[in-house]
C-alpha cells in the first residue's frame, strides 16, 4: 500500500488509528473544531481525534434531537456527530472536549451533559467544555489563556502526568512538522500546474486529524518524497469558501467538472494548519498565542479579517473562480458570503454561490450541472 493509500485509508476509516491506540492501552480524547490545542493533548500522552459527521449515515435521524424542549441543531455535521455519539459510534472515546464555537457545537455539549445527568445508563465519554471568545481583543486573549491553562490542568488530572515544558516542546515540534509538510501539499496544489487535486488534498489534510501526528508525518514525508512523479493537472483553478467540509462529496463533484480546487478557506482544509507555533520561547505561551491568533473562522469578529483572509488566499492561489458552498442552516457562514463575493469580484474573480446546501448531497447531478456551467463560463 502506498503512503497516499495509507493516508486515504485513515481518512475513510476515521476510527482506525484511535481504536488501535486504545487496544494498545492508550486513552483517546475526542474534540470538535480546530480551536482545541492538540499539542496539550499530545503532550499529555493522549490520542487526539477530531470528531466528524457522516453525511452517508443514518441521516433520517439527524436533527431529530431536542435539548429540554429547545431545538437542538439543524446544522448537518453537528447533528450527525451527536447522532453518532448517541448511537455508540464514538464509544471508544475516553474524553470529549467541546469548545465554545458555533451555537450548535455549544448545544452539543449541553445536550450531552443533560443526557449524561438524566440517563445514567447511557455510555458517554467524560465531557469537558472549553470556553473561548469570539473576538481577538487583548482582554479576550487573557480570558482564553486562563481557559486553556485550565484545560492543561484537567488533562494532567485525567492522565495523572504533568505536561512538562519538554513534553510540550516535543509535541509542538511534531505538530509544526505536520503543518510544514501540509504547507508543502498546499504549495503543490497552487503550483502553476497543480500537482495534487483538491479531492486528494482534503483526504491528506483530514487524515492528519484522525491519526497520531507522528505517524501522519511519517506517511506524509514518504508521500511527498515522490512529488516529482505527481502528474500535472489541467483545468480551471478554483477556490472553495464555505461551511465545514468533513467529507469529499463537494470536491468530487467539482473536480469531475474539469476544475481543480487549488485552495480553500475551510477548517477541514488549509485553514486547519495555518500558523506554526513559535519554538523559541516558553512552550505554553507559544501554544496559547497560536490558538489566540490563528486564522479566524466565520464565528469571529470582525468581518474584515474574514474577508481579507478569503481574498488573500484566493489571490495567492491564482484562482480563476470561487465556489461558495454554504450548508443549510449555517447562517454564520452565509452572513459573510456577500462581502467576500464582492471583494473577489472587485479583484477579477467570479463566484458561484451554492446556498442552503444539504449536508448529504443527494442530487449530485443537479449540483454538477450548476458547477459545470460555472466552470465552462470561466473557460470561455
Amino acid at each position, binding site marked *: 500500500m502506498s503512503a497516499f493509500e495509507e493516508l486515504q485509508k485513515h481518512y475513510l476509516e476515521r476510527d482506525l488509528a484511535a481504536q488501535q491506540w486504545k487496544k494498545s492501552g492508550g486513552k483517546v480524547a475526542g474534540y470538535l473544531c480546530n480551536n482545541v490545542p492538540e499539542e496539550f493533548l499530545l503532550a499529555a500522552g493522549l490520542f487526539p481525534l477530531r470528531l466528524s459527521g457522516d453525511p452517508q449515515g443514518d441521516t433520517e435521524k439527524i436533527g431529530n434531537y431536542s435539548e429540554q*424542549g429547545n431545538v437542538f441543531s439543524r446544522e448537518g455535521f453537528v447533528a450527525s456527530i451527536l447522532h453518532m455519539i448517541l448511537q455508540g459510534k464514538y464509544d471508544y472515546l475516553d474524553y470529549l472536549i467541546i469548545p465554545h464555537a458555533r451555537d450548535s457545537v455549544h448545544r452539543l*455539549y449541553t445536550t450531552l451533559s*443533560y443526557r449524561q445527568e438524566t440517563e445514567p445508563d447511557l455510555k458517554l465519554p467524560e465531557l469537558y467544555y472549553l470556553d473561548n471568545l469570539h*473576538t481577538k481583543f487583548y482582554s479576550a486573549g487573557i480570558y482564553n489563556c486562563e481557559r486553556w491553562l485550565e484545560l492543561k490542568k484537567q488533562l494532567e488530572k485525567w492522565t495523572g502526568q504533568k505536561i512538562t515544558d519538554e513534553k510540550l516542546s516535543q509535541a509542538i515540534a511534531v505538530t509544526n512538522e505536520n503543518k510544514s509538510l501540509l504547507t508543502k501539499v498546499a504549495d503543490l496544489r497552487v503550483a502553476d500546474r497543480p500537482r495534487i487535486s483538491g479531492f486528494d488534498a482534503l483526504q491528506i489534510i483530514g487524515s492528519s486529524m484522525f491519526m497520531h501526528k507522528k505517524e501522519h508525518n511519517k506517511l506524509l514525508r514518504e508521500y511527498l518524497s515522490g512529488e516529482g512523479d505527481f502528474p500535472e493537472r489541467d483545468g480551471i483553478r478554483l477556490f472553495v469558501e464555505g461551511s465545514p467540509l468533513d467529507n469529499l462529496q463537494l470536491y468530487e463533484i467539482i473536480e469531475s467538472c474539469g476544475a481543480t480546487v487549488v485552495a480553500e478557506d475551510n477548517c477541514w482544509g488549509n485553514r486547519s494548519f495555518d500558523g506554526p507555533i513559535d519554538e523559541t520561547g516558553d512552550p505554553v505561551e507559544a501554544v496559547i498565542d497560536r490558538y489566540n491568533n490563528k486564522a479566524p473562522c466565520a464565528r469571529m469578529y470582525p*468581518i474584515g479579517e474574514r474577508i481579507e483572509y478569503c481574498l488573500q488566499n484566493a489571490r495567492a492561489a491564482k484562482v480563476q473562480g470561487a465556489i461558495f458552498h454554504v450548508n443549510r442552516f449555517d*447562517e*454564520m457562514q452565509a452572513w459573510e458570503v456577500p462581502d467576500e463575493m464582492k471583494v473577489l469580484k472587485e479583484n477579477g474573480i467570479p463566484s458561484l*454561490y451554492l446556498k442552503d446546501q444539504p449536508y448529504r448531497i443527494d442530487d449530485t447531478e443537479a449540483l454538477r450541472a450548476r458547477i459545470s456551467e460555472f466552470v465552462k463560463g470561466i473557460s470561455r
Partner: protein
Amino acid sequence: MSDQSSDKQMQTPNAVRAYQREWIERTRQRVKQGEPFAICNGDDFEEILNVMDIPVIVINYWHALITTKKMDRYYQNILTERDYPATIFSMGLATTMDNKPEMAPWGGLPKPSIIIGGARQDTEMRILELWAREFGSVFWPIEYAIWHGIEKVPPPNWFERIRDHWDELVDPHKLDYRVQEQEKLIRYLEVSTGRKCSLPKLRQAIELVNEQMDYWRMARDLIAKTSPSPVSLRDQLSMYQVMWHRGTPHGRDFLKAYYEEVKDRVEKGITACPDEKIRLMWVNALGTPPLWGKWAEETYGAVCVTHNYMGIAVDSYARTILNDDPMRTLAAKYMMLFWTTPEWIAAQAKHSNCRAVVTVAGRQTKAAYEKAGIPMVSIPSERDDEATRAAISKFIESNLL
C-alpha cells in the same frame, strides 16, 4: 369577542402604546439636537443606558414593530436580493440597507451613536456589525449575553433560585469577564457622550426593575386565579413594551397602574373572555397572541390565558443585589435571564390553571412537557389554518371535553 368589546378595553395598555409613540418622537427630537442614541439587543445593556440617559431602541422591539406593520416580508426581500439570509433578527439591518425611511415604522430610526451587540447567537455579532457599518456608526461587540452565563443546562428549579441565588447559576469566570466588558463600555460611553454612570443610580435601577416585576407578578397572580380571565392575552402581552423602559420610574409606574387596573377588574367582575371554559397556555418565540385564538374561543371556549413571555417577565428579571454589587448583579442577569425548560413552562401553566400548553414543537418536546406534568398540544405552525385547527380540535375533543 372580548378584545373588541369597548367597555372592556383596558386603560394601561393603551397608555403604554401612546407613551411609546410619544417616546420615539421625543427621542427623534433629542437625536436631531445632537444627543447620543444607542441600539442594542434586548437584555444586553438597557438599564445602564437608561441610567446614563442615553436613549436606546431595543432591536427586538424594533423588529416587533416591523412585523406589526406587516413589513417583514418586504424587508426580508431586501436581504434576499443582496444574498443575505432573510431572518427576523436582520430586519433592522434591512431597513437601513433599504434607505427609505418613509417605508419604515416611525419614519425610520435616527442614526445611532453606537450599536451594541453580543454573541448571544452565532450570527448576532455579525449582523449588528454590518448594521453599524451600514449606518456609519460605532459597533461595540460584547462577548457574553443571555444563555452564555451557564455551560450546562440549568437545574430544573432554576426559576425559583434565580432572583436571590443567581450567583449559584452563573459561571464566575464568565461573569468576571462580562463585568469588565460592561465597565469598558461605560468608560467608552462616558468619554464619547459625556454622560455619567454611577453605582447608586445602577442600584436604584435594579430596585426599580424589582418593583416593576413585583407588580407584574401580583397582576399575573390575580389573572391566574380568576376565571374567566379578567385580561385578554393581547393586553397582557402589550404590557411587555414596558420592558424597554426597565429600571425607570415610569417603567415601574406603568406596571403599578396595570396591577391596580387588573385588581379593579377582578373586584368588579369584568371579564375579557366571558365564555371561557378551558384555560390554555400559549408558548411562542415572538410574544404574540395566537392567530387561532378567536376560533378556539368561539368553538370550544378554549382561551389562552397566559404566555411564556409573562413568565419571562415575572420570573426572570428581578434580582436581589448581592454583596452590594449592582454592576455584577446586572451582569449576571444579562448572562442568565431564563432558559425555556419544560419544568418552567409546566409550572407557569399549572399556576394559571391551564389544562394544556399549545406550541409548535416536536415529539421529544411533547414528551418532555408531559414528563414535567403538563400536556402539550403540538401544532404544525403558528398559522391559523386547517392543520392547526385540526391538531387543537383533536386534542381538546379527546382530552378536555
